[in-house]
């Protein structure tokens, strides 16, 4: 199992917990698993096309990743709003 970490409004939508142990072979599979456990998260991280929203960044063990990034048991996946603006 990998650990998905969320914060801010995502944490509230995910049952108030920041860390979630989930099964999945890719970041996208983990995020889908998070949606299954906490349906209120649906649409907030992944859009209708199955893509991680443009201004959300995902880091796997501290390295920038994407939906297709492979994950292994014990990995830590941070979901963060991007620093945007000027």
């Amino acid at each position: 199992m990998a650990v998905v970490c969320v914060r801010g409004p995502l944490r509230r939508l995910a049952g108030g917990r920041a860390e979630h142990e989930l099964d999945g072979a890719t970041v996208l599979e983990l995020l889908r698993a998070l949606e299954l456990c906490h349906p209120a998260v649906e649409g907030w991280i992944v859009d209708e096309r199955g893509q991680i929203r443009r201004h959300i960044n995902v880091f796997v063990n501290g390295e920038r990743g994407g939906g297709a990034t492979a994950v292994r048991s014990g990995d830590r996946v941070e979901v963060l709003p991007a620093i945007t603006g000027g």
Partner: protein
Amino acid sequence: MTELVVGTKKGLFLLEGEPGSDYEIKVRAFAGQPVDFATRDTRSGRLLATVTSPFYGPKIFYTDGDPDAEWEQADGVALPEGGDWALERIWVMARGEVDGTVYAGGDPGVLFESHDGGACWELNAGLWEQPSRSHWQPGGGGLCLHSICTWPGDPDKLAVAVSAAGIWLTEDGGGTWRRGNQGLNPSYLPEEALRDENAGRCVHHVERAPKQPDRMFMQFHGGVYRSDDAGASWTDIGGGGLPSDFGFPLMVDPADPDSAYVIPLVADMDRVTPDGRVRVYETRDAGSHWAARGDGLPAEHAYLTVLRQAFSRAKDGGQLELYFGATSGDLFGSGDAGSTWSTVATRLPPVFSVVAI
């Protein structure tokens, strides 16, 4: 007492007051978030707001209670899974003719319907599945469905406007749709392109005259138009005293089918009030003549931009109240059908929408 529901770049504001007197800001909700449109359904008292987080995408929220407290997220505000499109923004909401029905229009040119007052929504399949959809061209603000005109007493008749896919009309409750662009003259297109019905018809705002529902008024991207056949065809009424035929919002007096109000901007390449003066223009003869209504509005060095949803009204006839907000954060109001104006609020965040209740 009039309530103003104001969507801004940095949150929702509720104000209360009387025309000509001070308005009090009673509530600020969704602090820091863009509230594209917000309204109150007077049938239920429910407040509805469309919020487009730059991080988490567009959502509709509603509350039946304290707007300072938690709002509920509406269900179903999304496009079909697994396609090529994602919902970008909800631009407008409008109450339907049947109790509990609410419509929402958004980008990419989509219409949602709710039949429980805005808690659960579903995509209008008829418009979504238009065969020409893949050829629709977006305007500068995206492929936004921004105007929803119901027909008093007949829930089957509806007109919507999409920038820049033009006017779409239904007479079977949204099952089937047809275009209503005859007579529109997009001067920004080469003449040969006009034969292509998918070439951009950049409608900016449309309103229906409630007492004579086959009459409609339109602010176009360069042109003001009137329809007398329920939106099937349009006549240019942009002359007759307007300083410019470019602008975004438009309003009508429900008591007078010959009335319309616009707020002209200089041009598409200079989207500010002309001559540094803020003026609303009124017609009472269906567009033959327009008269400036600027008494009480800034008259010097005032270069304001008023967006398409930032103009609203309450009541009608001699009691008609008009309100509009600008991206400068100024909000103005009139309690005498536009004859005189006063400042309702200043230094708000950029105003996206105004609804007067």
